[in-house]
């Protein structure tokens, strides 16, 4: 404990809700346990990571399509929060090294697609239909999997609705 320079204190990274101090009044992406994605301005939080979000939109993403719904003010109960991340404005992100890496990662780095955003916005009806399809597919897969598992002697007593 010889290094007690107080100027070093800020470099300690809190992994508790205290970390969120830096995020107040910033635009955040919040992912909930049920898979919902909320984008809003963090106005306050407490020790349980209960969050107050203002001007929130809910973004539904299915494959490469997305759609936004205006939602307003949220009080999110901390238990249900999976992750909170600050949103860097796209204009800043665009053309940066990180963006380049993302494109490479998503296999989008061909010259024609270089300037394209990985997601495209669609209408609400479209996204709801796509989402329902996804849910149905998942349910069907689950049923097939379960019946196969039962065939080889496993017992199934839970349904995987919760993503986490």
């Amino acid at each position, binding site marked *: 404990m010889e290094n007690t320079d107080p100027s070093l204190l800020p470099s300690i990274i809190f992994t508790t809700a205290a970390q969120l101090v830096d995020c107040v009044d910033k635009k955040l992406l919040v992912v*909930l346990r049920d898979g919902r994605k909320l984008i809003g301005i963090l106005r306050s939080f*407490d020790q349980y990571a209960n969050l107050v979000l203002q001007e929130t939109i809910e973004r539904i993403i299915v494959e490469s399509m997305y759609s936004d719904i205006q939602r*307003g003010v*949220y009080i999110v109960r901390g238990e*249900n929060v999976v992750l909170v991340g600050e949103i860097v404005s796209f204009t800043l992100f665009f053309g940066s090294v990180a963006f380049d890496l993302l494109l490479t990662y998503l296999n989008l780095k061909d010259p024609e697609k270089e300037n394209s955003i990985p997601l495209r916005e669609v209408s609400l009806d479209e996204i709801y239909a796509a989402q329902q399809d996804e849910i149905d597919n998942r349910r069907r897969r689950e049923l097939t999997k379960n019946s196969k598992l039962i065939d080889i002697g496993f017992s199934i007593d839970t349904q995987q609705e919760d993503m986490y």
Partner: protein
Amino acid sequence: MLPLTLLNTSQGHPMLVELKSGETLNGHLVNCDAWMNLTLKEVVQTNSDGTRFFRLPECYVRGNNIKYLRVPDEVLDIAREKNQQQREEQRKSNQPQRGGYNRQYSSSGQRGGYNRNRGGGNFGRGGGQFQRGGRGY
């Protein structure tokens, strides 16, 4: 202003509560507590698929079942105003007894014995200061 403070100021306002199960409750908030337990009135409950609706005159929600609450936009402004008012009142109530010397010591907690002998006045102020320091972020 903390999330639960905002919830408190939402009393009397309409709100949407979604439970972890996916069920939603639309109603007016009557009361709430530090555990986020709620009582609502004039409630419309929907099942998790959103296909069935039930009207309940009143209901109680145990806080741990809540996923999130949606409150009207104006509640945020009301909460902010109330917060401001409270701060102003606190400042006013602190002003008349202007004992800078004593106050300093009572808030820092050093020489508590000395201050205790000076009577209850300091205690009240000390508490006020503690609250102010401890609030928020």
